[in-house]
């Protein structure tokens, strides 16, 4: 179940019960102006990880490559990946939805308990399903 927010009024607690909390359900899908991750930051993170993996592949290629593979040309070329601008925007949204989902689901649990502060126990309870969904 996807709940789409177009304004910041918060009425979905009245609509849904805890039964919706089934595998595959989804709490938020915010598509309007909201603070999100910086595209440059995500780009920096991806480049950092891709560069690290590139270096590790180079190192292991230097060690592992058998002469037969080199002769046959079956070793794959070790390319350094780069990202499209739109792909970066999408992945910003993806990471933002991860954080939003975590907070929203924990808030539901906390609300069900009648507390007004999200604690670690609430996060703990939603964590398995969150990690399976992402």
């Amino acid at each position: 179940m996807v709940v789409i927010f177009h304004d910041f009024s918060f009425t979905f607690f009245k609509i849904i019960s805890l039964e919706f909390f089934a595998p595959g359900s989804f709490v938020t899908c915010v598509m309007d102006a909201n603070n999100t991750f910086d595209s440059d930051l995500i780009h920096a993170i991806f480049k950092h990880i891709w560069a690290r993996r590139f270096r590790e592949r180079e190192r292991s290629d230097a060690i592992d490559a058998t002469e037969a593979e080199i002769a046959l040309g079956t070793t794959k070329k070790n390319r350094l990946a780069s990202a499209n601008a739109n792909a970066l925007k999408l992945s910003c949204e993806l990471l933002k939805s991860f954080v939003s989902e975590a907070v929203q689901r924990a808030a539901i649990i906390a609300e069900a308990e009648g507390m007004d502060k999200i604690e670690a126990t609430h996060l703990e309870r939603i964590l398995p399903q969150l990690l399976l969904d992402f």
Partner: protein
Amino acid sequence: MLIEYHSPYNAAFWNWRVYFSLYYRIAQQVHRRKPSSCFAMDVGGEDISDLQVDQIVEDDSMDDLIRDRFRLSAISIAEAEAKKNGMEIGGPVVACVADLAFKYAENVAKDLELFAHHAGRKVVNMDDVVLSAHRNDNLAASLRSLCNELKAKEPQSDRKRKKGSAKKEDKASSSNAVRITTDL
């Protein structure tokens, strides 16, 4: 703003803060002897060269900088989200969420690279990102709709520009050819 690593003796890079933080991190590593990814276990008894040590040091400082920036953004997003729900969120909880999000970002980066490589491409596409969200149908649907929105926004301006520039190039080249022949 990324730190550009030119040489270890670049004065602009090595101001006292960076030097201190790097020294602290090297000391941590030496003290803990933690097996980081650069101390590869398959390298056996090989000594780590100076270049690799420099790389490790740069990696760690870059890593921490990126992590801190990411944590700040994640914290602000989480707090805005909690406020939207009318709840407060505890400090350790939000730090935990930020760390989880960073680990997830690392996995996403790895997946995107694998998908792009599998498709025989070097550049990661929007389709790769949509594919990396395949585990949850709702998430995939929302990402796909965002993808279509982004595609709908740009190609009109891009296609017109491409067509226009191609036509202009053709005209220019043909007019040049005419000029050359008439000159002769």
